[in-house]
């Protein structure tokens, strides 16, 4: 049975988790608990955000608030609302997340470049204010994170240094003596990757070859986010007319130990997040919804 979190509980959660007084711009009166119905569709959940099938699902317009529970805070949300639809086909669940954004931000090559993105956090029914803060050790949260930078890598090829600094000059990159403008990943055999520490260490963010723009993660509290071993979530975002329309899709059944399994007819807890790169959003600097309810049609 899903337990709805009252606004009072949500505020108590906020207060208990770091702020004694809620900063005024995080306007709790604007916050809404998502109430999302995932409509069963006989056809597969489409990856195209503009597919007609999405019209079958009812759109929920949900108010966003800033994030003032875990440091660093985002006092004011970058965008006031997010529109969400959901479909499932008995095998996969998909979310169509839409928000206003006057400028798409894809690239994360320069120090001050932050990408646009959106996230869906899934928790078992009964999750409350504590779990809302990125899950707990007992109740891990499954997070789907669509990233505009990964999508650009997929669609236009890995955005390396030259994408942001086209006039960059260098003699050679060890140990690739004589290789003119070595391109990742193909010009980098395994023994050359030592010079690319993040990649060498296995950081998923540093892998130049992307397979999906949607990362599937697990969190057991703020600051514990980890990529799950099976990366089987996918999706696609389209920016048009000052608006992002993004599909995030994952199999209903869990592939990994800490991942949530969903079933037709089931009820779960859900929250959404939006990152606006132009506002410097990243990590905890995000606009979020309260924790609400997700129901899958039988």
């Amino acid at each position, binding site marked *: 049975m899903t337990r709805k979190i009252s606004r009072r509980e949500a505020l108590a959660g906020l207060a208990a988790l770091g702020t004694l007084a809620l*900063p005024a711009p995080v306007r709790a009166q604007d916050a809404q608990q998502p109430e999302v119905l995932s409509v069963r569709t006989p056809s597969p959940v489409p990856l195209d955000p503009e597919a007609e099938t999405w019209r079958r699902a009812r759109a929920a317009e949900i108010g966003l608030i800033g994030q003032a529970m875990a440091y660093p*805070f985002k006092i004011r949300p970058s965008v006031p609302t997010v529109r969400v639809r959901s479909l499932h086909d008995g095998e996969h669940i998909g979310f169509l997340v839409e928000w206003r954004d006057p400028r798409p931000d894809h690239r*994360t090559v320069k*120090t001050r470049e932050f990408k646009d993105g959106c996230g869906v956090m899934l928790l078992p029914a009964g999750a409350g204010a504590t779990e809302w803060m990125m899950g707990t050790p007992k109740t891990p949260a499954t997070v789907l994170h669509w990233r505009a930078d990964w999508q650009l890598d997929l669609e236009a090829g890995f955005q*390396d240094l030259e994408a942001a600094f086209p006039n*960059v000059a260098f003699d050679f990159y*060890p140990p690739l003596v004589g290789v003119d403008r070595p391109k990742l990943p193909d010009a980098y055999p395994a023994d050359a990757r030592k010079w690319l520490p993040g990649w060498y*260490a296995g*950081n998923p963010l540093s892998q130049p070859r992307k397979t999906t723009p949607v990362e599937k993660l697990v969190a057991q509290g703020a600051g514990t986010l980890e990529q799950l071993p099976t990366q089987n979530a996918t999706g696609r975002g389209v920016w048009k007319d000052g608006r992002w329309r993004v599909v995030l899709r994952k199999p209903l059944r869990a592939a990994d130990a800490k991942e949530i399994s969903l079933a037709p007819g089931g009820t779960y807890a859900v929250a959404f997040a939006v990152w606006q790169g132009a506002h410097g959003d990243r*990590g905890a600097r995000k606009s979020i919804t309260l924790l609400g309810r997700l129901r899958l049609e039988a």
Partner: protein
Amino acid sequence: MPKVYNWQIGREMDYPFEGRRPQRQAAAVFDTNKCIACQTCTMACKTTWTSGKGQEYMFWNNVETKPWGSYPLAWDVRVLELLGPQAWEGNVYRGKTLFEAAPSGERALGYLPEDLDYAYPNRGEDETNLPLTQERFYLRLPHDAWFFYLPRICNHCTYPACLASCPRTAIYKRPEDGIVLLDQQRCRAYRECVKNCPFKKVFYNHTTRVSEKCVLCFPAVERGVQPRCMRTCIGKIRTFGFVSTPDRARADNPVDFLVHVRKVALPLLPQLGLEANVYYIPPVHVGNVRFLQMLFGPGVEHAVATYRKAMEGGDEELRGVLLLAVSTDRIVHRFRVHRGYAYGYDERGEEVVRVPLREPTMVRPAYDPQHRVYRYNVT
């Protein structure tokens, strides 16, 4: 927020984590009077650690000219400007540290540099504090017209702002030696560390898209060998070792001797509250003491007077320990000055270096009758 004790500002201060000092703290003393800005340290570091794609602009070690030079552009001016005017009362800092001045919802006060800020690592190089007009071209100490070189690496702070700012504790301080490392596997590129390190010694890798920082050549340090930037120093300005807190200072530890006993080596921008662990012997020729106090805190006048006295021929012990700098690749844990020699010992107490306080000299006649040649003067 927990309270921690920061001896460099003489008081307790706010810090996001409980104070827990490492078993020992890696530290260094840089003698600004001897630095010639040859950038050998910079290149030693560059070729060792940051020659990969995406690291082009990174200088984990850089040498800048003060007062005008800075890398990234105006890092110190911008941080001090953000903090605003603050006051010392004797050796106690009464102003706000970067943690105490943190805006609501932030761990520390900071800013994220622009890419162009990193584009001029040699800006202001060799420029004096004021225009060189003819009447100022005379030599006396201190100088009216001056500049000096400030070599900089990560300070492996006791209270690092980068570590405090990372929302996912991807930055950690090693308990065995206090070296601050950034976990390349865990970083998710939030760049909070780049923003809040006031010294701007955490860098974003353009190609791997995660942040990186100076590792103080920890694989060498673990083997009792000094970091690359230290042991390649041409001017022999760098003393590397371990620093104690003032109450545990050992007079035969080279770093403790310079920092706590003679008090000639001072922390960089102690008012920021990070308890930085690279110490500087301030330049003795700089006329503007207030500028030096802004950079190195209230101990400047004492440090300059003590250093000058030693260089004029007094204080054999101080001269001795400074002569041991970069005289061996090994880390010197203990030193002794005895009968005209300075001795350095490693962790096991074995002598690793012996340096005469005065180099033996020999004067030879200009003409060598045996080879029937005139000699050039060489030293």
